[in-house]
Structures are given as C-alpha cells and as structure tokens.
C-alpha cells in the first residue's frame, strides 16, 4: 500500500471541465451551429433515421433533432442548474441549522417538516402551483425546488452530526468560535462534498423531471425545444423510432457525467481526509 502524495486526482476534474466546456460551446453557439431551425416542421421528412442530412434524425414533425437538442440545452441547463442551486442552498442551510442546533426545537420542527415533505404526494404540489400561478417553466422550478431541498437537508444534517463528533469541531468549540464561524469553517466544507456528489447525480433526475410534469402544464411549452420534454414526447414513437431519444439522452448523460466528474474532483479537493490507495 502506498500513499499517493498530493494525489488529489485532478484528472476527473479536468475531464469534467473539458466536457462541460464543449457542451457549453455547443449549446451557447446553437444559433450558429445548429443546421436547421429547431421549430420548423416538415411533414415530408418526419421520423427519419439519422443520415447525412439530419445527423440525429428527425422527430414526428420532421424537425431536426440535432438542432432541437442544441437549442434545447439552453432552457434545460439554465433551468435545471437554477433549480439545483436553489435546492442546494436551502438544503445546506436547513441541514446545517438542524444539525448545529441538534435536539433543539428548531431541529425538531425542521425535521418534522422534512418528514412531511418526504412523504407528501408531489403531484399535489405541482398541481396547486400550476393552478394558482399558471403554467410554464418557472412555476415548474418552483414546484421542484419546494420538495427537492429535503434530501439535501437530510444528508447535510447527518454529515454535520457526524462531524460534531470530531476533534476539530470540539477544538473550535473550546476555542470559543462563534456558531456561524463553526458552520462556515468546520461544517460547510465537510457537508458540501457528499451533498455536491448527490447534487451532480441528481441533475439527470431533475432534467427528466422537467418533462415529467409537462402534462400538468408545468415545464417548457411547445414548440420550444427542451431535453426533458423531447424525451417524453419521443416515447410515443419509442419502438418505431428510438433514435428520437438518442440526441437529448446523450446530451443529458454527457452533462450529468461532466458535473459528476467535477463534483467528485471537487470532493477530492475539499475532502478533509487524505486519500489512500489500496
């Protein structure tokens, strides 16, 4: 067994960043790069298999899937990252507060809320939001964030409780550091790594969930391309033309993979424990 010196395994971080950069260029450059108008329908060329003309084929309206995927990335990524950050922020805050003041009334109340939300039929939330505030992507994000932070909060809290057993925490306490300072310096760094890994992983789930609620009127409305709804709409033709799913699916996988690599790369940097190779 050898100890890897300074082995913060930068490879995953770098690969992740490179993939992300390529994706970002492709998506931001969609207006220039996309070969066709993403919403232009052409009944004569519907459900075509990938070819030289249409690299990823066409959908049921004869729209070019590559163009739609590139254009759709903006909506998808922007909205899912926004939701992710919001849920992360709430989750970390609540989780740390609950963990820090563990056993207090605050902790109990927060945990009860979390319990309720965990078991709550999410669809009811989504429906209420669609009914009260109207349809659209923003309201979808509202619905998603309102329940999504819960898992981050729970995880954060458990990490914090764990960390409180450690010597550095006790030391900080003894030295009279303020609660805020302890949170920021001791607990946040420890909590953020598992939570970040979870978050990068959840990104894919989130993107899929954007489509999942479109039947309620939440999510991107036609004809705007968006990865999640492209997958959902492709389902009707799944057996006839599975290629419809390939474009958006590949981009989702690449995005999630990139974030996952970055997340784990960051974790390696943030992790308070040195790594050991066995």
């Amino acid at each position: 067994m050898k100890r890897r010196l300074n082995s913060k395994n930068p490879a995953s971080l770098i690969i992740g960043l490179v993939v992300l950069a390529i994706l970002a260029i492709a998506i931001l450059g969609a207006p220039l790069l996309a070969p066709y108008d993403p919403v232009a329908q052409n009944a004569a060329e519907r459900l075509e298999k990938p070819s030289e003309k249409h690299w990823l084929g066409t959908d049921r309206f004869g729209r070019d899937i590559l163009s739609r995927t590139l254009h759709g990335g903006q909506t998808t990524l922007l909205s899912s990252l926004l939701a992710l950050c919001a849920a992360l922020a709430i989750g970390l805050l609540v989780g740390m507060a609950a963990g820090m003041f563990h056993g207090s009334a605050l902790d109990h109340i927060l945990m009860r809320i979390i319990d309720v939300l965990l078991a709550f039929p999410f669809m009811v939330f989504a429906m209420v939001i669609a009914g009260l505030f109207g349809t659209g992507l923003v309201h979808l994000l509202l619905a998603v964030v309102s329940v999504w932070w819960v898992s981050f909060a729970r995880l954060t809290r458990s990490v914090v409780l764990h960390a409180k057993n450690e010597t550095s925490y006790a030391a900080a306490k003894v030295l009279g550091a303020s609660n805020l300072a302890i949170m920021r310096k001791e607990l946040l760094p420890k909590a953020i790594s598992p939570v970040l890994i979870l978050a990068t992983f959840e990104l894919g789930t989130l993107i899929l969930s954007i489509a999942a609620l479109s039947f309620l009127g939440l999510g991107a409305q036609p004809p705007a391309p968006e990865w999640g709804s492209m997958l959902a709409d492709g389902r009707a033709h799944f057996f006839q033309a599975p290629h419809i799913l390939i474009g958006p699916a590949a981009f989702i996988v690449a995005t999630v993979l990139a974030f996952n690599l970055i997340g784990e790369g960051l974790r390696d940097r943030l992790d308070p424990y040195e790594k050991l190779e066995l």
Partner: protein
Amino acid sequence: MHTVLLRKLLEALLTLFFATLIIFALIRLAPGDPVRLMLGHPGEIAAQGTSAYDEKVAELRAELGLDRNIAVQYVTWLGRLAQGDLGTSIFTGKQVGSEIAARLPATVTLSLSALLVQIALGLIFGMVAALRSGKLADQLIRVACVALASTPAFVVGLVALALFAVKYGVYEISSDFSAARLWLPALTLGVLGAPQLVRIMRANLLTEFGKIYVSSAQSRGLDRKRVVRHAARNALIPLVTMVALSFAGLIGGAVVIESIFSWPGIGKYALDSILVKDYPVIQGYALVAVLMVVLIHFLVDVVYSALDPRIHHKGEAGREEKA
C-alpha cells in the same frame, strides 16, 4: 427507554398532524372540482341546458359535505380519523381504508424487492468502484451509473417488457399481483435506483479509507482485508439514510414502473385520485405515506444501533445521527 419511545410517538403524531393539515389545505387549492370531475360531461352527446347538472352538483356537494367551511370539514375529517375511518372515495363510493389496504401489499412487495436489488447492486459496485478508484472499472461504473440515472424509467421498463414478454415470452403482461410477475418490475426498479447508492457507497468508502489511514498512520503493516472490512462497516452507516430515503420514495408508489408493468399498487391509484381531486383518497393516501415514512425512520434507528455500537453509549445524540 420509555421516555424515548414516548417522545418518538409524540413526534410521529405531530408529523402526521402537520401532514394532514397541509394536505387538506393544499388539495383544496388545486384547480378542479371533484364533483364536476366525477359527473363528467352530461352524457355522450352534449345536452342543452345545464340546470339539472348544476342542481346535481350542488346536491352532491352538500351530500359530501363539500359545501361547508373548510375548517369544519377538516375537524369532521379528524374526528372520523380518530375513530379509524379514512372516509369514503367520492368516485367509487368505497372505503378509502380498504381501497388502500387492497393495494398496499403490491406496492410494499415491489418496494422491498426493488430495495434489495438496489442495496445488493449498491454494495457490490460501490465497493468495486472504491477499491478500483480512478481505474478503468471505477470509470466504467461511473459512466454506467450516470447513464442509468439519466435514462427515463419508461425506456428501461419498455425494453424489459419487449424483451421478456414479447421476444422470449417468459413474462406475462396482465394486471395481476402475483409472485410470478414480481421479478421484472423489481429488477427494473432496483437497477434504476441503484446508481445513487453505488456512488454514495463509493464516496463513503473512500472517506473511510482515508480516516483509517490517518488514524493508523503510525502503525505499520496494516492488513488490507481488515481495513476494507472496517471501512465497509463504517461506510454502511450513512448509507442507511440513503436507503431509507429510497424506500420512502418507493413506498409512495413508483408510478411509471407500476403503470408500465400494470402492477396494481398504490402509485397509480394515488395519481388517478389526485387528477380527479378525490379528496378523501388523497388525504388518506398522504396520511398512510407519512405514516410509512415515520415507520421507516423508526426502523432506521434500530438498524443504526445495530450497525454502530457507539450509539448505545451516546444515547440520544447518536440515535439522531441517522437523520
């Protein structure tokens, strides 16, 4: 010990109370009127004049007590609940309690089986990924996990059905709840849920490896087997939280999988009821779901103390750590 149990019970009741309050208020904010939705359109052909329809709606609303003040409705419902009565479905006229009881076994069976698959996959591949950290096996597992986590459930479910039911003819597509029909949805659901567990297991193990190294840096000749065993044991503890979360999600009903495999569980029943605003059913379902989550957390406590003997000594604090 008694006080702890008592406190747990009180907490559980409090959670349930919160849940009932929130669900009661929210579901009534959602658009759509259950009475109108149930009556549907007046016939296959549109009728002229709607006064009879409106009268019927008003009559039914009164009959169901929906015309009363929401607070009154809530108290009435709580009162019935105290007597163990979940109410009657607006749509089917059947007891919500018995309707849920009829579907719960299918969902619990499926959830437990899927959970076992998830845990098995999570442990095995998480361990492999951690031991081969940074190597090819680790990278392959990573890509597989990401791909699975980013694949819509319907793709996996439909492909499984097309293969096993149509191509090989070894799976029967029906609406029955039977042992012979369990394996395919359980496997599908298990595989779909495994990625998170794999990644968390890997991360936990790597952290534990690091800790052990730090703590035993001075001691020479650390035995690899012992390190792994020790690390695995510690890594399991945080994993329990994940598994519990996973189970809590499953128990609410995996709607896509239940629907694709036409598994007669609670997920689709709840969803149908939500869409038609069948208030008593939604309330009953939410209540049962919260109850299950509370129960799961209690079980997690038990598992925790079994896995981590320290918790016995530390009492309260340790027990709470699972959260």
